[in-house]
């Protein structure tokens, strides 16, 4: 029922490549930071789609792989700054897990330049804006992540 066109790689008005970015963010810091960018009427690249989670500590590395499989050209993970976690230590778990899974991600064929980690607090709207713009630009340079999208169709 939720079958959709995987070839739906976005294109800009001129027909050039526009990357699709999936962002996994925590509810308390980064989600609120992104909200603040809106309340402050800032502007950033439209390429990002947010998936809200209670805490970055909730993030299963499989989420990231799934995101790539489902058409993401880049993935961003962002939560509270170290020491600021709403759940006291969730972001440390996320960081530790990231260190452990980094090489695995590379092993399964994910170009680590497509994967970004950041800390954005609820007051750092500007940081969020810069982050999205930078990640979008960087992933755009890399081109579409066709290899991984193919995987899903192959199944």
């Amino acid at each position: 029922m939720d079958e959709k066109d995987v070839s739906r790689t976005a294109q800009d008005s001129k027909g050039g490549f526009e990357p699709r970015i999936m962002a996994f963010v925590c509810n308390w810091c980064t989600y609120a930071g992104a909200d603040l960018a809106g309340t402050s009427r800032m502007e950033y690249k439209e390429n990002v789609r947010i998936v809200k989670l209670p805490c970055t500590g909730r993030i299963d590395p499989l989420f990231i792989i799934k995101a790539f499989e489902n058409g993401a050209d880049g993935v961003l993970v962002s939560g509270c700054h170290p020491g600021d976690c709403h759940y006291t230590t969730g972001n440390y778990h996320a960081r530790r897990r990231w260190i452990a899974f980094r090489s695995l991600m590379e092993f399964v064929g994910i170009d680590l330049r497509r994967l970004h980690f950041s800390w954005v607090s609820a007051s750092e709207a500007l940081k969020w804006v810069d982050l999205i713009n930078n990640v979008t630009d960087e992933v755009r340079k890399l081109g579409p992540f066709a290899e991984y999208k193919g995987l899903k169709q192959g199944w």
Partner: protein
Amino acid sequence: MARIGVFICQCGNNIESTVDTKSVSEEMEKVPGVVFSCNYKFMCSSPGQEMLKEAIKKHKLDGVVVSACSPHMHEKTFRKACESAGLNPYRCEIANIREQCSWVHHDKTKKTGTVKSNDLTRMTIERLKRNRPLKKINIPVNKRALVIGGGIAGIQAALDIAEGGREVILVEKEPSIGGNMARLSETFPTMDCSQCILTPKMVEAELHERIKIYTYSEVEGLDGYIGNFTVRIRKKAKYVDEELCTGCGECIEKCPFKASSEFELGLNKRKVIYTPFPQAVPNIPVIDAPNCTMIQKGKCGVCAKVCGPKAIDFEQTDEIVEEKVGAVVVATGYELMPNERFGEYGYGRIKDVINGLQFERLASSSGPTGGEIRRPSDGKVPESVVFIQCVGSRDEAKGVSYCSKICCMYTAKHTMLYKHKVHEGQAYVFYMDIRAGGKRYEEFTRRAIEDEGAMYLRGRVSRVYERGGKVVVQGADTLSASQVEIEADMVVLATAIVSRTGADTLAQRLGIGYDRYRFYNEYHPKLRPVETVNAGIYLAGACVGPMDIPESVSMGSAAASKVLALFSADEMAREPIVAGVDKTRCNACWDCLVACPYSAIEKEEVKNRQGETVRWNARVNEGVCQGCGVCVAACRSKVIDLAGYTDEQVYAAISAF
């Protein structure tokens, strides 16, 4: 097949100006499972909510997506509306197309915003299809409170809770309640006598039928969760039977041995069987065991001989008592920075260099000098006194970067007390900045300078040394760019306020956070200043950071009101966003248990009919779980999931990307 309704809000023009909500609504109708879709000017308005409710009933919706502003704004509003229409509130989800779409993409052709709104709404719809109805969790609440610390903050919290009709257990580690405030002579800026305003409150707490006081006792451990804590309290041996003792004081009178008085900060001696000060509450003495020859060597026993009611019991030992409570207020207060750190100020070597609390004792009419200002070395009335502020505070080299906040005020007060008692005396104050932000505070410091003649010198003191019976202070007055030397008779150091020794240990026992200075962390420094991350544990007073009496009292009352609010119902409803374990598949690796920041995961034993343990599995204590989901990601066998954020839901959203 699901029956989902989709409501796209225009938010006046806030969304509509960059998102074609009609087109989004039409697009969403095509999504499988969506049976109703519309757009509307203000979904959060009363007519908007009515529309939503009617649609639920009319189309028999089993799920609702509202594409509107951030869920942080109106998620509660829409979930409530759904609930009143008979739909489980957790079958309602919000897609954020305002803060994270229309407001940040300024494309007036609406193309960008519409495409993104379509995506965000579709992802939310797919997620919603996997939403299970959830029920708020009800936790029974034990309506007794524990207050740790019997200083002014703790006493205030205890009295307020007791007045609110709930039982309170007040634990104090010293032999009497009263805390640091009991040591003060007068208080700024009103100059009313500290003991005069404090002792009635102490007595009130003692006599209150709903307050049980454990003095000379410490909290050893805390188990459980909000509404259902079990606390273990160590009652240190007093060697005096509290039931029998009448507080006559005969034993103290006759005790032949003396030791340095903690209450008088070493300025005086007390007996080995003692109450810290005459107005002690409870008025029951304790025996200082390490200094008691009877307990150490079996010789003496005078106190036991003179005790009429036979209350002395040399065989007494520490006792552990357990109490069940529903909430905890932590009010453990502060200490002053150990003065040995100030080698350049000669502290510990020069007798006439004392700290602010010691000066309070000298100025107190119940103090070692009966309220006369006499210097410790030879009892002489000092003709000049130098007060040095910011000793240790704001001194990163000594490890404290913060301002101790109350020293500017109490130093001004000290100069006045000194002037009132020694009319011819001259007070000098070395300060860096005068921080007198508070009601009537600025006027107070000005009074010290203008009316009471204190000489304020802007600068810091480099060192203090003795010369010919005088204490020589060498410093700078930066306003005149001069080096300054003062031959004083006494020096008072306004040493930094620091957290209590052992504050970190207690925090670990309670499961609350603390900063690098071991001051306790508020849940949120502005909006939830008396709560901690551990639900049901509240904070009051200077254990959070330096603060003065009015602030401590306010915080004590604030914590009490939080406790009373918690106790207002028999059960407490909690968001059902909690983790759950599929016990049949759990292989008891305990990764979750280690990962959980709240110790919400317990080991559960599974027994067969013969009562033998056949295996173990993890179990989530829903009262403690805060719903962060760290355990879910940690679980190797994928048997824990987080209600409201299940793997299924997240994958569905990803798949709709």
